[in-house]
């Protein structure tokens, strides 16, 4: 199940170091969100991080084969978790997203993303003899993705559900489906969008309408976007400086510790800080991706590429939300938004990435 301990020296410590930097930026940000106080967010998040760290290293030491073999089990576990959430889940803010496990409120949908990617990586690994994948071979992963999309969407948590579906589609695309199918489905989705609109809940329609024009409800639902844009815009080129963000310290910014942490960051550190942060996440995305070019096993490649992409993708979605180019759908900023499930799932992903980056494919891996 576990590799030899000495393989820990093979881990990509540069990647781990970047992860630490980003987490620490997140800590500083939560500290300033609380008006220059570790309490309540920064300290809690640090405790979680330290608590999860053993698990993190445990995962880096897992045999890739173990992960390969248990791919379906992981998927079934999250499926059970999601159904449990729907039946016994803990309801907050109008949605049933959490279940209580061992004293923690766990958001199973976060882990669904990982399990789904592992499952699909295995599926396509088994098909790897074929050059390009036809529609028929893509039906099962697509179906599984849609099942999980629906299970999360009815919580309702459209943001996470959309990410799950998007990751499923990215895997299928990356694995080499004929280009005609993604292009065709994009066309269909565009033409169907008016019908899809009617399936959305009123509050979801509302969010999209407000995204398109926040000024229709400046003190109500549009308030988030307007205040977030003011915070970011007032940061300017250099930023207002550490702890100098008035939008944050005077509480004009709602949900500043979760979905809108980027606004806090950008208000303090400005355009310069924002670009540095984007660059950091982009580098973090590329390090595992470069490794994929050295690998030939489809399973390894998909795990490394898609999970690395997942973190960067969520990062982009989140900041697009805060700067008003995407509707507010509730996607956390990896390692920076306050919240245990998101932190844990992203740490697990990074552990998996470190694990798979240290693979040398001299021997046949999965048999």
């Amino acid at each position: 199940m576990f590799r030899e301990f000495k393989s820990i020296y093979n881990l990509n410590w540069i990647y781990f170091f970047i992860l630490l930097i980003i987490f620490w930026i997140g800590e500083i940000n939560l500290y300033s969100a609380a008006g220059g106080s570790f309490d309540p967010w920064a300290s809690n998040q640090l405790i979680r991080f330290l608590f999860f760290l053993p698990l993190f290293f445990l995962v880096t030491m897992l045999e890739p084969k173990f992960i390969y073999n248990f791919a379906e089990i992981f998927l079934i576990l999250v499926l059970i978790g999601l159904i449990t959430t729907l039946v016994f889940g803990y309801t907050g803010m109008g949605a049933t997203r959490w279940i209580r496990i061992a004293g923690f409120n766990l958001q199973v949908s976060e882990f669904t993303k990982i399990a789904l990617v592992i499952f699909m990586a295995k599926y396509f690994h088994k098909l790897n003899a074929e050059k390009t994948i036809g529609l028929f071979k893509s039906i099962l992963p697509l179906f599984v993705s849609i099942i999980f999309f629906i299970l999360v969407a009815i919580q309702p948590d459209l943001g996470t559900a959309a990410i799950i579906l998007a990751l499923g589609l990215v895997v299928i695309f990356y694995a080499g489906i004929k280009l005609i199918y993604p292009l065709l489905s994009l066309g269909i989705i565009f033409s169907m969008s008016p019908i899809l609109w009617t399936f959305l809940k009123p509050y979801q329609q509302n969010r999209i309408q407000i995204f398109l024009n926040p000024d229709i409800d400046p003190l109500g639902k549009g308030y988030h976007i307007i205040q977030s844009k003011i915070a970011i815009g007032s940061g300017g080129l250099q930023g207002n400086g550490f702890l100098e963000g008035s939008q944050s310290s005077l509480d004009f910014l709602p949900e500043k510790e979760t979905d809108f942490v980027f606004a806090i960051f950008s208000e303090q550190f400005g355009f310069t800080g924002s670009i540095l942060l984007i660059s950091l996440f982009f580098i973090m995305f590329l390090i595992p991706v470069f490794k994929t070019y050295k690998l030939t096993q489809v399973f390894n490649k998909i795990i490394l590429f898609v999970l690395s992409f997942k973190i960067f993708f969520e990062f982009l979605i989140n900041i697009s939300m805060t700067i008003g180019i995407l509707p507010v759908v509730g996607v956390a900023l990896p390692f920076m938004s306050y919240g245990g499930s998101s932190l844990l799932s992203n740490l697990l992903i990074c552990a998996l990435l470190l694990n798979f980056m240290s693979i040398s494919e001299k021997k046949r891996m999965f048999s």
Partner: protein
Amino acid sequence: MEKNKTSEDSIKILNRRSFIIIIVGAILSFIVSIRLFSLQVINYKFYKKKSVENKLSIKLTPPLRGDIYDSKKNLLAGSSSLYEFVVFKNLSKDHFQEIIKLDGLIKLNLNFDEISKQLKKYNEYTGFSLSRASWKQIVEFEKNKFLFNSIKIIESKKRYYPYKNFSQIIGYMGQPTQSPEPYSKGIFHLEKSYEKYLRGIPGKIFNEVNSRGRTIREISIEKSIKGNDLDLTIDLTLQNYAQSQLPLDKKGSIVVISVLDGSILSMNSNPTFDAQIFEDRENNKIKDLLNDGQKPLFNRAFSGFYPPGSVFKPISALVGLQRNLINPQKEVFCKGHSTLGDRNYYCWKKKGHGKVNLKRAIKESCDVYFYELAKKTNIDDIASLSSDLGLYTEYDIGLSNKGKGLVPSKKWKKAFLDESWYQGETLITCIGQGYNQTSPLQLAILYSAILNGGKYPIPKLDKKVPTKFTGKSLNNEHQKIIVNSLNAVVQEPRGTAHKLSISNPEFVKIGGKTGTSQVIRIKESEREDDQYKSKEIEERFKDHSVFVGYAPYDKPKYIASVIIENGGSGSAVAAPIAHKVLDFAYKNNV
């Protein structure tokens, strides 16, 4: 598990796809960066301003309002301190218990239901005034101060009006508004029209506030600037004296203006009211005042329009002279009435005045003389001269409820009544009845115009307003004839107001004209007749008593215009009042 062979081509596809996804990711990052650049660099100023607006709260502090003085710097309206119990919701959760406690400790007789209703509307950081605090209550409160966390005594400024008989000139203030301006505004008369002048500039306290409006810290303070003081042309002593001369049981008014510069020296209207009750928020008294059938809020000297009666006759005479319709020496025989068509128009003197020339017609107020003149007169000439001499004109002296009254013309009747003009109406218009409507102030101005030879000074209440003349010059001869006749009304035997010079020979010698303004059409023959007084006529149908006089008659300086509603004949009621007030003004050289 079967061994899986990886084909080279398949790996190439994966690497190519990975490249596409990286490119897409890079493009998305670039779009995000462009957007950030637009927000943070291009539109930085816009968002910075928004951010500052978010956190800055500007609290206005009320400025001290300018004082109002009479012409000799006696204070007519000033500011005084007002202490109130004010509750701040944010200071204690138990603020409502504290209010009840306060009411128990100091008997304030608060209406808790009303207070709890009002309190809900207030921001937690804005104080809500519970009640005024007297010195005794303040002392009692201070002794038990430790019991109250949310209640404080706050000093504010209120308007202070020392004299009741200025309310119809100065007006009053409205209730203070919550926001954005924390002070009350004048809503009536001079307080209203001089609002900007008197108000001053509010001070500003710049506070940094959080999203719930709570002050985090004070950034800077700009002090408030007191409003300008206003000096009136009114003379306090004359105003008070004139008020004392108005009969308490009658509605009426008296206005005194200066012939020389149009200054309004006093302006009284009875009944009057106390503007202080608005400042003291004595709601029951305010309610009574607003519902009072006597209409004390109504300034009768300025906004009361009545038929002028015989005081109008000089205009008719002037039209006759200007149009060459009469020879002032030529006599007309008054047999008590005049006939037009099949209708008789009666003189107030039933048995007739006999032979009357112009001077006698004015002196003895012979109606028949003017009926005969009216038969030859065009009503539009009357209307036009009336306007030239200050009637049918709106005066902007800063008082509310402006009006121009009415002097009828053919055009007016067509437009408003859709009827053509009858010559019979010219007859009654020429003696100041009919559609004629003038205010006491307008009548004073009319006489000022006549005494000034046509061009008269525009009336004013504000001492700073420069004297300005308006109107058209009269023929010198004509003016002399009229003024002579008006002097004769008081100074010569058989003048309708000759009684004045007999009963009070020590008073300043005046000229003037009596008038009796009809409320209903009592038979013409009964007007100004002594037997009229003995008639049992219901009070409210009695005629208004009118007199316009000036003093001294040989070198006029003051004009007094008096109306006593339902007072009866002009000579009996209004004239003696005017004489006393003119004498007072003259002797005191106001």
